[in-house]
Structures are given as structure tokens and as C-alpha cells.
């Protein structure tokens, strides 16, 4: 699912594809929540409901050779990037057919084939990593773009500032994408940051920056085109703040004491799928049968993924310590 | 070193030599060799122990002064005071 980066396409196929990608994430996350309540998925799980427009708007603009670093809320990013839904679901089950051999789980999806350098459970942990990937590219001259996704919570981490400074100081091709969903777990932005205009923080490091309505997939895509183009040409980092909102709890076990239901309802009407679908229907770009067709295609893909995971196998315990260190017989990357 | 400490050391060392004897109830002026059946080797070990623990050297000619509990205490106490 790559999109030409020169001028914004508003073709019907492209619009339908954007809608399908967002609905695909939403329904996948919905199934994951169901499976979690049935104890099929364990550990921590953070779903992407409400923020789909960012992954769907940004990731397709990247090229196959570019690299992505994400966070523990990375199911959507992995799916849009092209990590097979079967392997993602199997990973959620902990089966060895999963994309990280079942060893990572929801927060640690890795895929070398798509240069998906993983989820990361440490807030801000991915930023220095992305800088490193960009440093290597800087030295190897492959003119890549390294997209680094993180929540607004990460800006409080030293690593955020260290990474932005390093990227700006050494001129490294990092596209910093901040998914500002207003809440760092239970802490609203206003009570965790002196300067709540996140995008402004980037200017302190002389990094070109922009803020965009994260609920508008078309706006996000347009901003992403500008950003990726800028990074590719200038070899300098670019900071894209996407203002969004998460409809579900931070994670499964979160009674959301920190926000009231009214606020959630307000955002439910502004969420990306509802807005985009209503806009498309208002402009006769799509019809109800288009929607039901793409929904049934998605449900079939999800059913197949669940079946694949259910049929998956447990890694034999004798292999517990395997790959703690490199195995000379097995090259890295498989 | 206090008087009590000195008597405690003497009692402990005699106890090492004659474990089954009840040193505490021995008449302080009685001849230890009779009271708790110690021979010349035992007495030499006692003298060695006192030298080791308290740094007091007891020449052979002074041995007779230490054959009773009181005698031993007086002799050792005197030597320690002199060293202070």
C-alpha cells in the first residue's frame, strides 16, 4: 500500500483505501479487546481506537526501505506498514508463529522484512534508537527516512530532548511523529508539561515542525507528504505533532478515573472513521455497499488471523535461552 | 582491664584445661593442682594461654605464686598494672 508522494490524490480508490485501513485497525483492536477478556491475550495491551488516522496518514507515505520505530501502542502501525495480520495476532497469543517468535507480545512487535524496528515498552525508549538508525543511514548514505512514533508523554523523558538535540545537531533524517492524545496514561497533558504546545518544543532544537489535526486522515496525509519530502531532501529531522484522542482506556485495566464520560462522547463524534465516512458519503465518494464490502473483507481477514493464532504452537521450552546470544548457525534477521 | 575481666580470663582458661571441674566453686586459696587435678603440662598450657590472651609473661620461678586462684589473680593484676 504505497502512495505516490508528489501531489495529494483525492481519487476514489485512494479514499476508499484510507477508510479501509482505518476500519481494519479499529476492528482488529476490537477483536483483540474481546480476546483479551477471554484470556487469549495476556500481559499489557494498548489499543489504537481514535488515533487510526495518524498511522494510516503517515506510514503509506514512507518507502519500503525507510525504517519505523514505534511504541507499545503499535498494532495499527504494524498493520498499516504491512506486517501480516496473522503474524501480529499469533504474536498477541504468544505463539511461535508470531512476528517476534511469540516472545514479544502486544508491546514488542518486530519485523525485519518491513524494517519495523519494534514496539518499545519504555516511554521515550524508541527515540534514541531512531536517532541511531538515522546515524547509521547518515554514515551509509542511503538517504532513508526514519519515522519515530511516540506519545506526548515521552516529551517529559530526558531521552526525548537528548534525541531531538542529537538529530538536529548531527543532521539526521528522523521524522518525529508525536501522537498527542492528551493523556499520558492517567496524566492529562496540562498537568505534566509546562509548555503544552508540543510542536513548539521542537523549535528549541531548530527542528522544522508542524501540528496537524490528527483526527483528519487527509490532513495528516498531506502533512506527512510535506514532512517526508523535507526530511528526504534536507537530511534534517522534521517534527510532526498530530493532535488526537484515544477513545478507549490507556490499557485494558484502566477505569479511566482521570477523565469523564462526557469528554469521551464529545470526541466520539470527532473520531477519524466517523468523520471521514460521513464526509465521503456527503460527497457521494462512496456508497453503503462499498462500506459493507470492505467491512466483510476485513472481518474475513480477522477471522483468518484468529484461526491462524489459535492453530499456532507454543515454542518448546528447551529453546528458552536460544537467541539470548547470537547463534552462529542462524543469521540475524530470521 | 578490670578485676572482673581478669578473674573471668583465669576461669575460662582453667575451664579449657579442666572442662569437667567447677572452677567457680574452687576455694580461692586452695592449691589448684590438687583441687582440679592439673599436671605440669596443664599448668604450662595455662601459662601459655595467659601470655597469649593478656600479654603477661610468667617466668618459671614465679610459677609457685600462681598455684591458687587468688595468687594467680594478684600476680597477673600486678603485672598488668605495672604495664599501664
Amino acid at each position, binding site marked *: 500500500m504505497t502512495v505516490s508522494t508528489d501531489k495529494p490524490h483525492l481519487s476514489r480508490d485512494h479514499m476508499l483505501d484510507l477508510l479501509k485501513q482505518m476500519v481494519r485497525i479499529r476492528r482488529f483492536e476490537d477483536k483483540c479487546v474481546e480476546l483479551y477478556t477471554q484470556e487469549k491475550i495476556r500481559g499489557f495491551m494498548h489499543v489504537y481506537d481514535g488515533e487510526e488516522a495518524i498511522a494510516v496518514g503517515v506510514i503509506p507515505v514512507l518507502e519500503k526501505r525507510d525504517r519505523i520505530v514505534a511504541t507499545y501502542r503499535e498494532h495499527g502501525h504494524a498493520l498499516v506498514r504491512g506486517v501480516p495480520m496473522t503474524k501480529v495476532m499469533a504474536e498477541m497469543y504468544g505463539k511461535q508463529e508470531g512476528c517476534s517468535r511469540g516472545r514479544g507480545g502486544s508491546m514488542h512487535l518486530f519485523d525485519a522484512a518491513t524494517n519495523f524496528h519494534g514496539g*518499545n515498552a*519504555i516511554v521515550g525508549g524508541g527515540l*534514541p534508537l531512531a536517532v541511531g538508525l538515522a546515524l*547509521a543511514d547518515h*554514515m551509509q548514505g542511503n538517504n532513508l527516512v526514519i519515522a519515530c512514533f511516540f506519545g506526548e508523554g515521552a516529551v517529559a523523558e530526558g531521552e526525548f530532548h*537528548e534525541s531531538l538535540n542529537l538529530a538536529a545537531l548531527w543532521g539526521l533524517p528522523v521524522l518525529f511523529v508525536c501522537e498527542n492524545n492528551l493523556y499520558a496514561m492517567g496524566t492529562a497533558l496540562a498537568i505534566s508539561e509546562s509548555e503544552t504546545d508540543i510542536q513548539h518544543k521542537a523549535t528549541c532544537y531548530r527542528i522544522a515542525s508542524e501540528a496537524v489535526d490528527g483526527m483528519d486522515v487527509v490532513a495528516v496525509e498531506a502533512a506527512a507528504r510535506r514532512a517526508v519530502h523535507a526530511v528526504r531532501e534536507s537530511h534534517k529531522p522534521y517534527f510532526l505533532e498530530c493532535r488526537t484522542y484515544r477513545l478507549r482506556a490507556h490499557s485494558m485495566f484502566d477505569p479511566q478515573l482521570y477523565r469523564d464520560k462526557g469528554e469521551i462522547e464529545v470526541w466520539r463524534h470527532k473520531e477519524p472513521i466517523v468523520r471521514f465516512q460521513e464526509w465521503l458519503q456527503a460527497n457521494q465518494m462512496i456508497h453503503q455497499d462499498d462500506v459493507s464490502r470492505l467491512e466483510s473483507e476485513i472481518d474475513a481477514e480477522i477471522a483468518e488471523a484468529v484461526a491462524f493464532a489459535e492453530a499456532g504452537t507454543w515454542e518448546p521450552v528447551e529453546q528458552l535461552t536460544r537467541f*539470548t546470544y*547470537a547463534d552462529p548457525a542462524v543469521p540475524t534477521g530470521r | 582491664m578490670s578485676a572482673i575481666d581478669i578473674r573471668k580470663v583465669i576461669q575460662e582458661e582453667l575451664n579449657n584445661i579442666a572442662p569437667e571441674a567447677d572452677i567457680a566453686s574452687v576455694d580461692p586459696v586452695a592449691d589448684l593442682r590438687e583441687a582440679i587435678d592439673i599436671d605440669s603440662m596443664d599448668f604450662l598450657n595455662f601459662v601459655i594461654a595467659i601470655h597469649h590472651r593478656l600479654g603477661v609473661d610468667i617466668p618459671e620461678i614465679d610459677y609457685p605464686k600462681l598455684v591458687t586462684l587468688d595468687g594467680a589473680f594478684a600476680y597477673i593484676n600486678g603485672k598488668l598494672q605495672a604495664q599501664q
Partner: protein
Amino acid sequence: MQQGTARSETTEMTYREAVREALRDAMKRDERVFLMGEDVGRYGGCYAVSHGLLAEFGPERIRDTPLSESGFTGAGIGAAMVGMRPIVELMTVNFSLLALDQILNTAATVRHMSGNQFGAPLVIRMATGAGRQLAAQHSHSLEGWYAHIPGIKVLAPATLEDARGMLWTALQDPDPVIIFENVMLYNMAGKLAANAGQVNIDKAAVRRSGRDISLISYGGSLWKTLEAATALAAEGIEAEVIDLRSLRPLDDASIMASVAKTRRAIIVDEGWRSGSLAAEVCMRIIEQAFWFLDAPIGRVCSEEVPIPYPRHLENAALPQAPKIIAAAKAALGRA
């Protein structure tokens, strides 16, 4: 002092110069290698190890970093993940705590966690140990912490040969390797073979053979242990001194071979006793050589106290030769 010395088979050198030689050698032989750390370039290194390297290799490969330990260590890990062979210098183990998250949660873990999708073949060097009256925050000896972590290897070069030879071998390793250089050794001078080069990094070494007791140590403490062994010999006690060299993985075979012969062991470790590397070595001896033991295994570690600033207190807190001698005699049942 490096080039042009007469072709005698050995050159007089300090431990610091041996490490510098190792860096120069690695940088010349592999262009993927670059050095990154605080003050390694213009300043020439906090312990003057990288002095002169900036002029020789330029700012791209001798990279001064801001005080962002987590940042540049993570960057080193990231660069190693995709083809570079960085040498990250964390000035001392004390500052490595800021980078421990990157070292543990990414470097040590990524290969296993990603199902072998990614590795992190970098080398992290850090100074360690006390003895310079730098007080509590700058005197840690936490080799044991790192030796606890599966996924990384941990080395402690105590001799000039190891300071010179371990780096290149470590750089060839596909997994992260941490090299601890004890601060008290930098000034240690000695003779090094002119053609000294690569050494193995997984075997312990018998620095002094003996039959009465095994004194097992590493890094800075090795020299205090040898001093103790010499003193013991004067009293007719023949101590065998084992230099662990690799703290992870531990060379069990060499340890057990020695203990099976002497039947007694004392471990000398500058870490704090509780949960220390010494504790681990003791437990392995009990697990593998229990039937040969003739005396309880002894340990000589730092006193469990933040290292104090005054010299006499610092010395009292650290393992010293007299403590080692006393422990050895106790194990031999001699006053």
C-alpha cells in the same frame, strides 16, 4: 611513543596506552568502528585514553557527545543494529546507570525479544572501581550488576595484554560486550610484547599456581590478590591466583579445576557482598565442586557502605591484601 620504538620484542607501556593502542588498531582495521562518548574527542578522554585519536581519525569517528548517556548509548545500539560497530565510552560505571535502560531493555534484550530479527554488536567501555577518593557517587563497582544480565558479555581486563587484546575480539562478537577498566589500573606500567594483539575473552587465567588455596579475583582486585599470595608464600602457604577475565560468561571449568585441586577458595570482589559476583562464584563452586570442599568458601568484598571520601576510610572499605591474607588463613584453619 607508539611508533618507531626499537624492534625489541617488548615495549614499556601503561595500561592506558595499551587501551589506546587497541582503539587505534580497531579503528584502522575496520571503518565500521567509531568511538562515541563524553569528552572522548577534543578533551582526549576523561582518563586520557583517547588522547590524540581525534587528530588521527577526525570528528566523524571520534564523536564527542552531549551529556546524554541514555541518548548516545541508545544511539550506539541503534547504529550497531544496522551495520555499524560503535565503541561507546560511558565515562564511568557511575554514569552508566543513566544508560542502564538502553543497555538492559534494548541492547541485551533485542535479539531474544525480536525472535532473532535484530542484534546489537557494539562494545561499551566504562571505567570502574574506587580508590581515588571520589566518594560514594563516583566510586561504584557494579560489574556484578551487568554480569547478571543475559544477552550481554562482560569483561574485566586486569593486565596490559588483556587491555590491549580484548577490544578487537569483543568488536567481532555479534552481541553487546561491556569492558570494565578499573580506574586504578590506567597508570599501571609494564612490558607489553611489541606484536601484542587479540586475546580470547571467555577463559579465566591462572596468574599464580599453588596447591593450598584458590584465590579467585578480577580487574583491579587481582593485583591485591597477587600481593596477598606473595605474603602467604612467605608463610609456607602456596596460593593459586585465578584471574576471571570474563565475568559473563564465567569460566566455570577453570574455577572448578583449581578448587578441586586446592579444596579451598576465597573470592575477592570489589562489589558489595550481597548479591555480588562473588556470591555467584561461591554458589557455582558449591553446585559443581561441593564434594571437594574442605573449608567454607570465603569472600573478601567491599564493606557494604557507600564508598567514603577520606583515604583511610576508603581503604578500609575496599578489599585489601591483609583482609585477603586473613581470609586465606581462616580457610586453612591457621590463626
